[in-house]
């Protein structure tokens, strides 16, 4: 059985004027990406060069302390480092030596810049080069900045992947590069679908291990699985690779459109495409149906967080019957989210950046049924009577591709179901 997606709206949001406000941003900095990247790349260590605040952020970011054997740490700058009394390059080399001596399993070390290291202009790029030479060939040392002055939340992953691109070996082979850190189970599902479609040469960035042999070149085409990879997109284009624009693979429609874009690129015929996708498409629609009953007709408001907002608004409006009243994103890369904007029917305010107090005023004024926001805002808004969905869970939970469509819809319907379940104010 073949399902046909709904036609695109007469007028989408691609040309909607964007509301840009400047004020307090209630968002994480790019260091936060380390929380999932260090689990994704199993032989990588992330060494933040920063302050006590950075270390404190990393252990608090997920709302509770994470105590799995960490493959990240912070070298905390001290007074002597700032006063220039200590040679920062030497100090760093000493700490890295100690770390690598203790953790012989590390193959990739990322020096991660922070606000303080950027402000005092510590040359971490040079440090990475020198350290890489010193510890070659067993360890490759790379640098990126996850500082809050340059990166917002998921842009940390973008900066990390973009830093890896120039290091990738050159290749001429015709291949698909799937870009974006996904939970292993989701990545495996995606690879299996691509294999069944007959797309043979597929590599994944970031790979789980350093020696996975990922390469790039002029015959590489790449598809992004995350909408926040603008810098990586540019870095790959500089290596001659070509982007396949597509809606992001959330829900049945998003996944199908994403796969279709790849299938067109690799000349997969319609019959084969339908044969491969029919069953998971039907399954995903079935899996979403319960949540859809809860979500349909409800208003959703997005505070900016991860740049997933536009694709997710597309998912909630087109596949779950919701009405988007405001879709806020920290940044809007139209080259990446353009296809999702085309599918999102006109209507919502599209906002980039943030002045959190003004945005809260707008949110309270429209009283949405569901507000997607960060952890700093969720409980205060719940206390005001609004239902919320923590945005960070969307980054930490498997939500991509067909088999997770039901889970993704469920993440949004659960707060609403919970609200109707709890009878806390009932009279005795």
């Amino acid at each position: 059985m073949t399902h046909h997606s709904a036609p695109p709206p007469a007028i989408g949001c691609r040309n909607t004027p964007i509301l840009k406000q400047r004020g307090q941003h209630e968002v994480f900095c790019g260091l936060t990406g380390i929380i999932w990247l260090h689990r994704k790349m199993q032989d990588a260590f992330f060494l933040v060069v920063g302050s006590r605040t950075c270390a404190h952020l990393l252990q608090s970011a997920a709302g509770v302390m994470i105590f799995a054997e960490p493959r990240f740490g912070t070298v905390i700058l001290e007074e002597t480092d700032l006063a220039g009394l200590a040679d920062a390059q030497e100090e760093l080399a000493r700490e890295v030596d100690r770390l690598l001596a203790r953790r012989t399993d590390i193959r990739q070390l990322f020096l991660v810049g922070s606000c303080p290291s950027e402000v005092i202009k510590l040359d971490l790029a040079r440090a990475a080069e020198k350290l890489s030479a010193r510890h070659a060939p067993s360890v490759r040392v790379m640098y990126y900045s996850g500082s809050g002055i340059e990166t917002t939340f998921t842009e940390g992953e973008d900066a990390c992947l973009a830093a890896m691109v120039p290091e990738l070996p050159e290749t001429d082979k015709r291949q698909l590069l799937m870009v974006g850190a996904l939970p292993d189970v989701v990545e495996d599902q995606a690879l299996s679908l691509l294999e069944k479609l007959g797309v043979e040469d597929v590599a994944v960035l970031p790979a789980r291990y350093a020696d996975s042999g990922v390469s790039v070149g002029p015959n590489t085409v790449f598809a992004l699985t995350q909408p926040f990879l603008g810098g990586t997109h540019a870095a790959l284009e500089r290596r001659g690779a070509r982007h396949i624009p597509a809606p992001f693979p959330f829900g049945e429609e998003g996944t199908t459109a994403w796969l279709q874009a790849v299938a067109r690129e690799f000349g997969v015929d319609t019959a084969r495409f339908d044969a491969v996708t029919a069953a998971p498409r039907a399954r995903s629609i079935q899996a979403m149906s319960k949540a859809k009953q809860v979500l349909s007709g409800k208003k959703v408001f997005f505070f900016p967080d991860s740049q997933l907002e536009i694709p997710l608004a597309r998912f909630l409006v087109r596949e779950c019957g919701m009405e988007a009243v405001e879709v806020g994103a920290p940044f809007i890369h139209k080259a990446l989210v353009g296809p999702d904007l085309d599918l999102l029917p006109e209507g919502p305010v599209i906002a980039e950046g943030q002045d959190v107090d003004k945005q809260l005023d707008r949110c309270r004024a429209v009283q949405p049924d569901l507000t997607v926001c960060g952890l700093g805002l969720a409980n205060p808004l719940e206390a005001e009577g609004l239902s919320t969905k923590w945005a960070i869970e969307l980054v930490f939970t498997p939500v991509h591709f067909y088999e997770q469509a039901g889970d993704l819809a469920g993440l949004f319907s659960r707060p609403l179901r919970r609200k109707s379940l709890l009878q806390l104010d009932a009279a005795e």
Partner: protein
Amino acid sequence: MKLSVWTYEGPPHVGAMRVATGMKGLHYVLHAPQGDTYADLLFTMIERRNHRPPVTYTTFQARDLGEDTAKLFKKSCQEAYDRFKPEALIVGASCTAELIQDDPGGMAETMGLPCPVIPLELPSYQRKENFGADETFFQIVRTLARPMERTAHISCNLIGATGLGFRHRDDITEITALLDEMGVRVNVCAPYGATPEDITRLGAAHFNVLMYPETGESACRWMERELDQPFTKIVPIGVGATRDFVREVAGLADVPATLDENRLRQPWYARSVDSTYFTDKRVFIFGDGTHVAAAARIARDEMGFEVVGLGCYNREMARPIRALAKEYGVEALITDDYLDVEARISELAPEMILGTQMERHIGKRLGIPCAVISAPVHVQDFPARYSPQMGLEGANVIFDTWVHPLVMGLEEHLLHMFREDFEFHDDAGASHHGHAAKARPVEPAEEPAEPVMAEVTAAPADQGAEIIWLSDAEKELRKIPFFVRGKARRNTETFAAERGLREIDIDTLYDAKAHYAR
């Protein structure tokens, strides 16, 4: 530069946030880059606050650095005042803003805002969270409090409780009731729950109760000097400390030392025969200085444990904790590096840890039960139920909290007797913890022939040669239940080292057991 994996304390501006969030009617304008707003979630998620912390972040980005971050600060400051209309403002910089040297304090003072503006100087690269809270509260008190006529009825201020404090909410209730029983009223409790207007009334109290020296001592010292208010030195955590505290308050307030011990169950629970198994249980204590000192006294004098090591992460408390350690005949561990703490714990092999959330995880890894006695806090440290640490109810709560992770009396004996049982064995853990039973792994029929090298950390340095566990002795050691195995291993190795033995056989094991028997 210093490598840090986990930190016990946040940066000092988080301490300032704890003061601001604990108070009402105060607003904090923090010159800080994008991302520092993560600290909001400490309060909204861990403490489950139903409002945003009263903090405005300037959120500067790289592009602002080339332009005018000072202008951005002024704009944020003005907008924060206009929107929130606070009774007073505190202003300061986070670590990054400290580097760009905009002087937020100076700027805010020149803006002519119609409320007191209190500038904060919190050196982010030298100090930490507790200092930040202590210094912030001190500056607020110094700016707003004035000498004034005392209340007609004897009264005191409760000083030191903050937002995100370890059981501060319930300690306030407990101590307020305890003072009330003595006929002493609470004039102001601060920072927790106080407005800037309340701070101006601090001087009306006859004395101060310093609940948490970590966050309130500087203010108390200033008030002692400038407002002529003495302050209490005893922190009423534990039965003995609570009784001492009552006597201290009675002296300061000139009232009888009355304490209604009707609802105090801890002493009887500790004396009851079921608690015999606590006797000489070896405990290691780590946390903030105040809670560690209190826990050490409770552990030794009120539970009958043996304190085998203690320490604190806040250097401000290094001196009293070193002195305390001396009194207990152990070496103090003053460090904020949790790897050092882990190393010390594995070296001492205690039967129980009284620590923080960090030590709880260390305990998990080493298989040692742990009860949490101190910040840094976790969402579990904000229970829905009334759960103070201070006063008589605090003593009851602590008894329960410390007993919970242990394998209880008779269960401990049964594990001794039937340790080979396939489901009721060491690794299964205490039966009241409700995890799925783990079956005992089937042991290989033949033991590895290689003798095991002992870790000779316990051996005196001059006899530090390697001691070898013969396989029979190693096998016998494994029959000893997990919660005493570490102690048995350590004692046996020390025993062997003291006698210059190179090998440990079954006889050495039992000779050592007899030697250490009490």
